[in-house]
């Protein structure tokens, strides 16, 4: 077992330079010589399974998103404290890529080649994760539950190792579009979009229902914090409903700019950008308290697919609170942490399904076979099968009211393309009593 400690790394680096300049030097053995593990695979030992993820811990996307891995870590610690999965603890490593795809490539190299993880769990971001899609699939690393709603993760033919998790942006866009068509049929709709697949997929979904109502689509480049020209254009186009597919920082920026322009359309933000607590805390400090907290998001429409902190009595939220209190670090339980815990919960389910001697191949096969039947924290099931690696299939439309949300309709499910939107009626079951899933191994 080789474990590069602090000194090992530092001296290793020096040695590598020396090696280059002088002659040769053995800075480590060959990898993947672990033939003796029986059915087990890279990153799996008798005591542990090592998994990794990449997240923006710094930079433009860090607010909120940087909390996701802390949630996942807390849940894994909770599972480990309760005996782990098939007797193995889950060893979770996550690294910062600053939402920069080039960094992502570097840190995933480290995770796969240096840390030798068994699987990638919850790697975050559309532009970032697409940079490592080929690499992970080429190396045969299971790439589970990407933290992004892009359609890219559902290409089982091309990327057999990759699985989506959250409802994709097209599904969300369709459901939002249908809501606007039904309830605001006369509205002129403006779109406020992040200039990448995130915005594009959302736009595609929305246009399928309200193509004729859309009067303007404005895109912002992430990193440029001056969105005044975009908001002014939406206002000029006379949009009285604005649908935003954007990250939380830009929810705050768009609200702030709209206030400056006294522009008051009905705002609809996709789930990703709408966390009231986070946006509120970003907004609260402006103008010496003249902007009051989440009140600014009062009445804003968004979507939900997980019970969150605004439903403290939901049995799932009670579980997350218990986990966070016992294993969380600093800070409160937030929706982002719940997101991370829910992903971790799904991974535990998948690992259980992969059996007592998990392999990379085995966990992928297990998800394809039973993934569609798994039930967990989300209101709707996954769409996993041999032909589909798409994640959750629906959301419900809600309105932000005070510190909570109120439902504007039932839970809806749909698929990509022309699939119709239908109501999902299965009752949402609570978590197991011990808070740990119990999935039978496949085959």
């Amino acid at each position, binding site marked *: 077992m080789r474990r590069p400690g602090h000194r090992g790394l530092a001296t290793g680096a020096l040695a590598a330079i020396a090696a280059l300049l002088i002659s040769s030097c053995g800075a480590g053995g060959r990898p993947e010589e672990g033939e003796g593990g029986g059915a087990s695979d890279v990153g799996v030992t008798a005591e542990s399974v090592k998994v990794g993820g990449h997240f923006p*811990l710094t930079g433009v996307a860090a607010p909120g998103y940087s909390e996701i891995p802390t949630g996942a870590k807390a849940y894994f610690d909770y599972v480990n404290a309760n005996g782990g999965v098939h007797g193995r603890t889950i060893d979770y490593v996550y690294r910062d890529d600053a939402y920069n795809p080039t960094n992502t490539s570097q840190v995933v190299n480290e995770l796969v*080649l240096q840390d030798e993880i068994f699987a990638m769990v919850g790697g975050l971001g559309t532009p970032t994760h*697409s940079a490592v899609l080929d690499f992970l699939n080429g190396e045969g690393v299971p790439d589970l539950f990407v933290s992004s709603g892009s359609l890219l993760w559902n290409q089982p033919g091309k990327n057999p190792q990759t699985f989506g998790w959250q409802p994709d942006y097209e599904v969300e866009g369709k459901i939002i579009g249908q809501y606007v068509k039904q309830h605001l049929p006369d509205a002129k709709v403006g779109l406020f979009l992040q200039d990448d697949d995130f915005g594009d997929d959302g736009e595609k979904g929305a246009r399928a229902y309200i193509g004729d109502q859309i009067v303007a689509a404005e895109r912002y480049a992430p990193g440029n914090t001056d969105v005044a020209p975009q908001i002014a254009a939406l206002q000029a186009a006379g949009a009285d409903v604005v649908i935003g597919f954007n990250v939380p920082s830009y929810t705050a920026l768009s609200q702030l700019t709209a206030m400056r322009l006294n522009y008051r359309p009905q705002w609809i933000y996709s789930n990703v950008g709408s966390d009231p607590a986070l946006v509120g805390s970003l907004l609260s400090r402006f103008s010496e308290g003249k902007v009051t907290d989440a009140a600014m998001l009062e009445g804003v429409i968004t979507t939900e697919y997980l019970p969150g902190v605004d439903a403290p009595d939901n049995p799932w939220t009670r579980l997350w609170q218990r986990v966070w209190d016992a294993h969380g670090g600093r800070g409160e339980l937030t929706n982002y942490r719940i997101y991370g815990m829910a992903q971790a919960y799904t991974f535990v389910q998948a690992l259980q399904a992969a059996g007592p001697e998990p392999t990379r191949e085995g966990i992928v096969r297990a998800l394809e076979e039973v993934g569609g039947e798994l039930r967990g924290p989300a209101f709707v099931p996954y769409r996993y099968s041999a032909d589909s690696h798409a994640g959750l299939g629906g959301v419900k439309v809600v309105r932000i009211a005070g510190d909570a949300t109120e439902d504007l309709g039932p839970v809806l499910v749909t698929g990509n393309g022309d699939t119709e939107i239908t109501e999902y009626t299965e009752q949402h079951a609570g978590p197991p009593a011990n808070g740990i899933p119990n999935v039978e191994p496949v085959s």
Partner: protein
Amino acid sequence: MRAVLRRLVPRSLLLRNLLGVVAGLVVVVLVLETTSPFRNSQFATMSYYAIAAAGLTVLTGLNGQISLGHGALMAVGAYTTALLLQGGSVPFPLAMLAAAVVTALVGVVVGAAAARLHGPYLAGATLALAVGVPGLAIYFDGLLGGEQGLSVRSPRPPGWFADAHYFLTAGELGGAKYLAYIGWITLLVVVLLLANLMAGRYGRVWRAVRDDEVAAELAGMRLGGLRILAFVVSAACAGLAGAVLAMVVRLAAPSGFTIVLSLSLLTAVVVGGLGSIPGALLGSALLVFLPPAVTNLGTGAGLTGVQAAQLAPFVYGVVLVVVMLLAPGGVMGLLRRLWRRGINQGGST
């Protein structure tokens, strides 16, 4: 002893450099074969920094022109490579060559503008270039993939190469290792060409221009043309570096070519010693191997992961200032000074 050595080294410059490159190749094979895939991937990263830094050191060190825009030139090379490799029909060496040519052409344009500027003006203009060019990729998102960029099909080792490799080393050829080979072979070729160029007529002329513009102009040299040529050579290197980067990172995206990249390259050449190719290699090695070491020191000292990650750039910045204040010749300058002192002492006793 030195006389013996001198006799063993061939007289011709080209031969001598060639011999150095062959020796380098042997070292590269030995190092890549004995290190882990992770180290291999680090060496692959180092190779593209080194290619770009070698080109930059010719421009800044020999010709006296600063460029904060080499990141943008690398972007040109990377996107060219990504576009050509997309179809799967263009072999990667051809794509790399094309990247170098296209970037050199861009270098003609940028160089022509840059030749009329000096010092702070040139720095500011190339800084604007570095900040501005990535915007093109977002504007032409249909072709260039916008914010998320173009993913690149990294070349897989062809059968004969893998076979030859197995025959020689009895080990299988991983993806990281193959990319490291591509990067380092490119680097050795670039170093060979640059070393010859620097030792030859153009090297002398460039140095003359740097040291005394007026005198060089009076001596009948066409400064504009010389400056542009230096820029083109340097741009071609940046283009190649971009091509290697695209294949190693498997992506050409705007976020890969921020101002940080350009400043890192500058750090590498300044710390290594302006105008010195070995210095550029040393500087690039620092760029790759220093951050993990510094980051570990930081976490060891109780910093959070995020704080520790920022420790490396902090060290770069401080080192850049300190080097300029105390040892403007960089590491190579220091070594040369020590070497000379050694000889002088040896002579006097």
